[in-house]
Every structure is written in C-alpha cells, then in structure tokens.
C-alpha cells in the first residue's frame, strides 16, 4: 500500500512529537561540539510545522512535504533550517503531484533530499554531518523492495547506524569543524536528528 497525504501528515506529526521529546538530548549533543542550539531550533521548527498542520490540510504528499520545507526555512534559525528545508523541498519536488507514494517514490524522495542537503551544505560522507546518516539511509531504501514501511524501516536502521558512525569522526563541516580533533568522540547532532526523523517516519508507516 502506498502512503497518502494523510499518511504523510501523520508521519510529520509523529516526527514533530519525537523532535520535541528529544529536544534536550539534541541540545546536549550540540553543546559538546557546536553552538548548543540544534535541539531548540528543531523544536521551534517542528512546533511551527504542527501549528501549520492544525490550520491547513495538505491535499497531496508533495504539498505536505513542501509545507514542512517552507516552515523550517523560515523558523529554524540555524543550519538545520536551510538544510532540512532544502531536503523537504527537493523531496516535495521529486514526488510531484502524486496522490499516493509507493516505495519507489519514497526512495526517490529520499535520494532527492540527500542531493539537496549535499548541494546546500557541500558536505560529503565522513565530514561528521547529517549526510553521514542520510547517505546510508538512501542506499538502504534503494535496496529494499517491499512496502513503504519496509523501505522506511530499512532507511531508519541505516540512518541510526550512520549517525553512530559519526562518533569517532573529526568534523570537517559546520560549527564543529572549528574544534578540529576535539570534535572526535561525540555524536553529531545533525546526524542524530536525521536518524530520529527517519525512525519517526518508519514508525508512522508501520502503523498506517
């Protein structure tokens, strides 16, 4: 079964709840190697997403993704704004006007999101950024042939593993890069939030 606009909205609502629950954890991670604002920025952004979803009803998956993009761009305030904003915007463009997304469309949306993040932030795998979570997630999504839930679950697992892989890395992009060697030994907050979002999308798809 594919996912409809209301499935996407449900996934986004769950993601917003997860981000709110993990606000303090993301703040702590960002305190260690960044400017300590990632948790609060993400909370602010996804809280704004929730309030927009309360007042608007996106009529297609693509429109729901675009709503997230424009909201995050204008409310987040840190690097996550343009990065996640671009990711959701590209995902929205990739799925177009389709009323329902099958597993191929979801994989394509994830690919487009990754391409957007790379274009915006110029990071590559190994730089200790969200790209380290998103890249294996896309590879996993492409390799799974099954339901949308199965695709997203594989992507979420790979993202979690990819996020963990950032711990020993020395940051080469973002605020953490100013720390040089001292950035090693810490989980990257952006990679962590990417893994959290994909897990929330997978959980929502499993329930749908």
């Amino acid at each position, binding site marked *: 079964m594919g996912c409809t606009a209301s499935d996407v909205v449900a996934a986004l609502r769950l993601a917003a709840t997860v981000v709110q629950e993990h606000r303090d954890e993301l703040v702590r991670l960002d305190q260690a190697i960044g400017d300590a604002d990632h948790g609060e920025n993400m909370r602010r952004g996804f809280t704004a997403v929730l309030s927009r979803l309360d007042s608007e009803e996106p009529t297609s998956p693509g429109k729901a993704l675009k709503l997230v993009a424009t909201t995050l761009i204008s409310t987040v*305030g840190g690097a996550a*704004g*343009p*990065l996640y904003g671009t990711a959701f915007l590209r995902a929205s463009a990739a799925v177009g006007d389709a009323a329902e997304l099958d597993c191929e469309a979801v994989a394509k949306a994830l690919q487009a999101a990754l391409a957007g993040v790379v274009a*915006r932030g110029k990071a590559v795998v190994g730089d200790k950024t969200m790209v380290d979570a998103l890249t294996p997630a896309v590879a996993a999504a492409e390799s799974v042939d099954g339901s949308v839930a199965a695709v997203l679950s594989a992507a979420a697992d790979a993202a979690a593993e990819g996020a963990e892989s950032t711990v020993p890395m020395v940051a080469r992009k*973002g605020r953490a890069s100013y720390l040089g060697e001292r950035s090693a030994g810490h989980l990257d907050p952006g990679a962590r939030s990417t893994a959290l979002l994909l897990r929330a999308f997978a959980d929502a798809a499993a329930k749908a």
Partner: protein
Amino acid sequence: MTAASSTGRVGLVIVSHSDMLANGVAELAGQMAPDVAVLPVGGTEEGTLGTDYGSVVEALADADSGEGVVVLYDLGSAKMTAEMAVESADDPSRYTVVDAPMVEGAVAAAVAAQGGASQADVAEAAERASGDTPAATPSRPALHLVQDAVSAEVLLTNDVGLHARPAALLARTVAELDADVVVRYGDEEASAASVLALMGLSAPGGKSITVVATGKDAGEAVRRIEELAERGFDD
C-alpha cells in the same frame, strides 16, 4: 546604513548570526561609503543568535536600488540562508553572495560601491579582501615605465598617513575616473582601487607617497590625490 531608495549604487547586505555583529560591520563599512545602502541582518526573530530567512529576503529587496546587491555573511548557516534567499528571488542574478572575510570584505565592497563599481566589481573587491596585508598588484607592468603615465610625489600632511579613512577617501576620489592609479611607498605598490592594499602600504604621516596614473583621466586622478593630501585628508 541608509535605506536603499535610489542611490544608484550597488547595495550591501551583511548577514550575521548576531544582530550586534551585523550592525557593527554595517556601521564600519558605511563610514567609508556614505551613499551606499549597507543593510545589517542578524539574529533570529526572537532576538537570539541565528539567521532569519524572512529578514534576509526583505533586506535583499531593500538594499537593491536597481544596481544589484552584494551579500556578505559570517558563518555556515548565514551563508546557506543567504543563498536560499537569493535563489528564491524573482531575479537571482541581481544578488551575489560572496565568500569573503566579513569585515574586510564589507569595507572593500562598500568603498567599491561608493565609487560606482558594478555588482560584479563590488563582489570582486570583497573577495579580494583578506585579513593579510594584501599583495599589491605585483603582476602589472611597471606603470612608471608606461609612456603616458602621470606621476607625482605626494606628501602625507595628516598625522596618521594612509590609515583606514584616508585610504578610503583616496580610493573613492579616483574610483569614478577612467584611470589606473597605483600608489607606491618604499618598495611596495598598491592599486588605488583597493582600500585594503592602500592601508597595507603602512605609509605614515609626514612621509611621501608616489602616485602613478595611466588612462584618460590620469592627470585628473593625480591632481585630486594631491588636493586631498594638501587638505590633510580632511582630518
């Protein structure tokens, strides 16, 4: 830091995580370029550190008097926010986000804009600026050997010599002329188009510089610099 209106000059937008920093840079750059719109955008809507996309979009439009806008930024997400704002504009080609040191770049860009430089040239002035003493035009042919060159020894009658404000005045006074102007002090040479290169000469008050100009307005350029020095750079 005037709002744009019709200054007929390229505008500048300074995007920083910090409102204070953006305003400080705009103040510094604006001092050198009274007729250039230098608009600071810093911090989030709530007054915390960060960048606010909507404010950047507004500043881009406000800074554009018709000649285009050059955008400088401080750190990573300010750059990304600026780039997104430019991409979303009706005509992204009117805006150039430059990779330049924010303070030096803004000063160099403001002076170039004050002199009536194009959007591309203002952007280049910012990009060429750096925290190091700028290498002063080493590759050009020795201008004093060019036949139609006009040159003069100019005594720096002010106390501070070719410091920031006098250097900016000198650059401005010849920017609009059709002349290639080089200033020499000791063994070093700087293009009069670059405030930072002029400052890099470290020519102190009481000493003389050599001004060499070529081009249609070469004589006028040298005359203006002589006058400026005689007035003690209006110090």
